[in-house]
Structure formats: C-alpha cells, structure tokens
C-alpha cells in the first residue's frame, strides 16, 4: 500500500498554485491529505503531480465579515473546532465537527479539502448545504463564486473544473438566538455517518418559526436539503406536532443503499434523527433547555 510515483509542488501563492494546475497534466491538489492519502496508498488515485496547498496563507484561516463566516479552504478542522467565533456564531458547525474523524485527522484535515472531496456522508459539505454556503473558486481564468446548491453535481463530483482550486467557503450566519440541532448515527465514534441530520430554526417576533433549514447527510449522492419539510415548519410554533410532521417528511425520502446500511434503515434513521435535531433546534430557539 505505497503510493504510485508523483512529482511534488509546494506553491506559496494562490496564483502560483493555479498556474501549476493549469500547466500540469493529471495533477491532484492536496491539503490535509486525510482523504486523498488513503486513496493514494491504495492506488485508487494515481496522480503524476501533487500540488500542496498547505503553504498558501491567503486561503487559510477564519474571518468574520459582517454576517458571513469566511473559511479559508485549508483551514484545519481542528482550528474550526476550537474557534471562539465558530462556537459563538455558528454552533451547528462546531457540533458537526466533533463527529469528523478523530483528533489526529482533524489536526491535518481541512474544511475545504473535505468539501472538495465531497463524500456524501461527510459533515462538512452538509454544513455548506445547511447554511446555503457560497463556494469561492480560483483558477488562472479568475475567481468565481458558486452557490452550494450548484456546487454539488453527483457522487463525489463537484462543479470544480480540473484546473480550479476551491479557495474559500462563505457561510452566511443565522441571527443571534437561532436554534440548532445536530444528530448523527455512525457505527463508531468518528466514522462516516450512516445518516446525519442538521436543523436550523429562527423564530419570528411572534414566536413562530420564520425560517428553517433541514439537511441530511449519508442518504443521497449529495447532502440533501429537505425543502418540503422546511416549508411545512414555517408559521408553526416550535413544538412537537410540526416537528413530527417534518420528521415524517424526512422519513419519506428514497435513500441510497450500500454495504453499511440498507435504504430502509437509512429512511428510518432520517426520520428519527431529523426529529431529534429539530427538537433540539426548537428548544434552543425557544430558550428551553436541551435534554
């Protein structure tokens, strides 16, 4: 399990990296290497050139710009996990990150790397979907900004062209006092989710649900926003009856089956975990304690 031979590049600017990517055939980008590394060791991925994004300061780090959290692509998961601004302004992300791999992999694994890798059971693309993220993409042709809904194309396939680099992720923040909930079922701590459910709720001045975001990971080829269930919540008080109705809609999806779980089991978990995530989000939004 040794990787096939490759040449290695360590650019120090985004422009340099984009130039390398435009010039080299069969090149792969590496950031933390926690997903790419195993695939290279198994020789599932054989690249002639490896371009390391780790030495480019302009695409690393967390910044709060107004009501948007900008996450540089090569920001390690660990940095987000321990970030005060994430804890205060984007608590759903912090909760989700605790389920990403292990301490050792979060030290090196990057947010942008995971989003670009686009595993359907991963929590990080899921967070992008939940927050209606905007993905900033760079190449020698310039920079473009892609809404996340258009970024995910298919199973482990994104809108990134071969010469493009995912540079940053912008998460529009929810208002202070919003409710959130995250529930995941994995076989072991840190494993990829069989199913994960994320909920965000904001109440209007009338105490009723004014805005909702419901997202599932592990059930489809891309993170799945439950638009119908979201719509069904609007205007209701944050209580059990509308939550159960929304969870039932989550339980009506047609999920994937693989060696880890059948479609029936995933459908069942989608309903249960959506209900649990929504219950937590509703409690938080209403200022109640979460069990």
């Amino acid at each position, binding site marked *: 399990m040794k990787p096939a*031979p490759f040449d290695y590049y360590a650019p120090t600017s985004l422009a340099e990296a984009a130039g390398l990517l435009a010039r080299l055939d069969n090149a792969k980008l590496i950031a933390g290497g926690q997903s790419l590394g195993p695939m290279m060791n198994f020789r599932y991925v054989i690249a002639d050139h490896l371009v390391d994004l780790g030495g480019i300061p302009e695409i690393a780090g967390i910044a709060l710009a107004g009501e948007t959290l900008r996450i540089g692509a090569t920001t390690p998961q660990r940095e987000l996990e321990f970030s005060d601004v994430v804890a205060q302004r984007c608590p759903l992300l912090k909760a989700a990150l605790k389920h990403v791999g292990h301490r050792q992999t979060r030290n*090196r694994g990057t947010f942008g790397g995971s989003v670009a890798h686009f595993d359907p059971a991963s929590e990080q693309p899921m967070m992008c979907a939940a927050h209606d993220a905007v993905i900033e993409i760079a190449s020698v042709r310039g920079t473009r900004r892609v809404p996340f809904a258009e970024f995910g194309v298919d199973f482990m396939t994104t809108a990134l062209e071969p010469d493009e680099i995912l540079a940053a992720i912008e998460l529009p923040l929810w208002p202070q006092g919003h409710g959130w909930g995250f529930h995941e079922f994995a076989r072991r701590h840190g494993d990829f989710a069989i199913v994960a459910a994320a909920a965000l709720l904001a109440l209007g001045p009338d105490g009723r649900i004014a805005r909702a975001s419901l997202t599932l990971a592990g059930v489809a080829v891309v993170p799945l926003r439950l638009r119908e269930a979201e719509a069904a919540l609007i205007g209701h008080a944050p209580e059990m009856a509308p939550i159960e109705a929304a969870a039932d809609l989550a339980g009506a999806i047609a999920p994937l089956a693989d060696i880890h779980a059948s479609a029936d089991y995933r459908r069942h978990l989608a309903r249960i975990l959506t209900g649990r995530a929504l219950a937590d989000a509703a409690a938080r939004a209403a200022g109640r304690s979460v069990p």
Partner: protein
Amino acid sequence: MIAKRNISVEVNGALRQAEVEPRLTLADFLRHTLDLTGTHVGCEHGVCGACTVLVDGRSARSCLTFAVQVDGRAVTTIEGLGPGAGGLGVLQEAFQRHHALQCGFCTPGMLTTLTELLNDNPDPTEDEVREVITGNLCRCTGYAGIVAAALDAARRLREGEA
C-alpha cells in the same frame, strides 16, 4: 524518473537532512531512512493510529503525510517522548503501572496522541480520554489500562511529578 528532494526536519530535537522521493511517506522516512523504528505502521490508510507522531506538537498520521510535507517542521516520535537514555516519562511509567500495553504495536500512537491531549488539557475526563484515542485502535488491551494510565499520568503531572 522523478527527482528526489532535499528536506531538513527537526526530529526529536535534532536536525535531520535527507534526499527523499516525493512519494515517501513520513512513516517510511522515519522508520527506514532515519531508522527510528519506534513508529509503527498498522494500516496505511489512516485509521489504526499506530503511526501517529507529533508534527509541530500536533498529532498526525505519518502514513498519510509525505516526508516532503514536513520539510522545515519539527517531528516528535516515541523515541523523543521520554527523558532520554531509555528512561520513562510520567505517561510511559503510568502505561507500565496500569498494563496499558501488551504487544506494544499501538503504543507509539497511543503515547503521542495522549501526550498532545495532556498538553492541551491537563485535567481530562475519562470520556475525553476515550474520545481522543478513538483515533487509535488497540487489539490487545481492551483500552482499560490505557484510559487508567492517561488519567493517572494527568493527575501526577498536575501534582508536579515530572
């Protein structure tokens, strides 16, 4: 042929320079180029944790890191954890006292991971210890001795036994 690269890495406090193929993993660099065989390779796909070392003080899978990526960085392996000359540090002593190792193959990764944890958090709970070593598989011990050793070492370190 792909050209080899010159790298210089601070390993256990000593500067080491070598010419390496870009595809050489950090694990193989440590074990076979530098003959630091205390770091073990158990799965080469980033799950078992036996190859865990500290890079700039942070635990990392050396099977998922290429040697060229640690050029200019500081790496600590199991050989660099104790007081030297084969002596045992507080955590290592606790491992022996609590029978936290049997075959010893996962031990380098357990020690490096727990060294980082105790640096970050001198007073971890049992749950925190268990959670952080989910990144390290052990087939022999059933983890009980490892958890006990980590908590015991944390207490001794807090009480100033160094």
